[in-house]
């Protein structure tokens, strides 16, 4: 299984990620998830979220999660980008792509990765009060 992980302070460049997609002839499903910072947190407007990460441990935990994906489903590729540092409201903080022969396993793997990330990856967020930047 191809696996790529990028924990970065840079903006998520979706078009560059799509250009680097590798789709073998026997793959029939690509699931792509984009998580975006909401402009409201607990009913109050926010300008951004500050993401903090314990990077070495996050890489280790994502590796373990990807190992589980590889054991459970015939997934050909997993790519994940998580932004850290300050991410403005309206901007993506998470991009996940799974590629598999069929949609069931592609969707299941993508859901699993995100659920396990939220349980295990040492990443924390702190909302920054203020109005969302204009779109």
């Amino acid at each position: 299984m191809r696996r790529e992980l990028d924990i970065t302070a840079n903006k998520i460049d979706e078009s560059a990620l799509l250009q680097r997609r590798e789709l073998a002839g026997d793959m029939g499903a690509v699931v792509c998830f984009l998580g975006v910072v909401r402009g409201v947190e607990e009913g109050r407007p926010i300008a951004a979220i500050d993401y903090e990460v314990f990077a070495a441990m996050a890489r280790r935990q994502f590796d373990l999660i990807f190992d589980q994906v590889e054991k459970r489903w015939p997934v050909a590729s997993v790519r994940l980008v998580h932004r850290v540092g300050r991410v403005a409201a309206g901007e993506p903080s998470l991009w996940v792509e799974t590629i598999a022969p069929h949609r069931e396993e592609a969707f299941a793997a993508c859901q699993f990765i995100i659920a396990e990330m939220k349980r295990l990856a040492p990443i924390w967020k702190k909302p920054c009060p203020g109005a969302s930047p204009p779109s």
Partner: protein
Amino acid sequence: MVDSSVRIRVHFYSYCKDLTGCASVSECVEPGSRIEDLLQKLFVRFPKLAPAQKSLLVAVGVDYQGADYVLQEGDEVSLFPPVQGG
């Protein structure tokens, strides 16, 4: 006399860092001490950390560990609240 205590480094993340006022500290524990023993020492040293006890997660190196893990010389222990990626 030889000092037989086990020296470890403790790192704090997220609001654990706010509660202790620092990113990391050194600690010494008795040989055979477990993470739960270390936590008790830390709660005395940093009383503001104690109320967070039930929700604290603990890692040694880059792996999660339970309260009964026996600390080894040179261990890098990390304390943090529940994670919130995404």
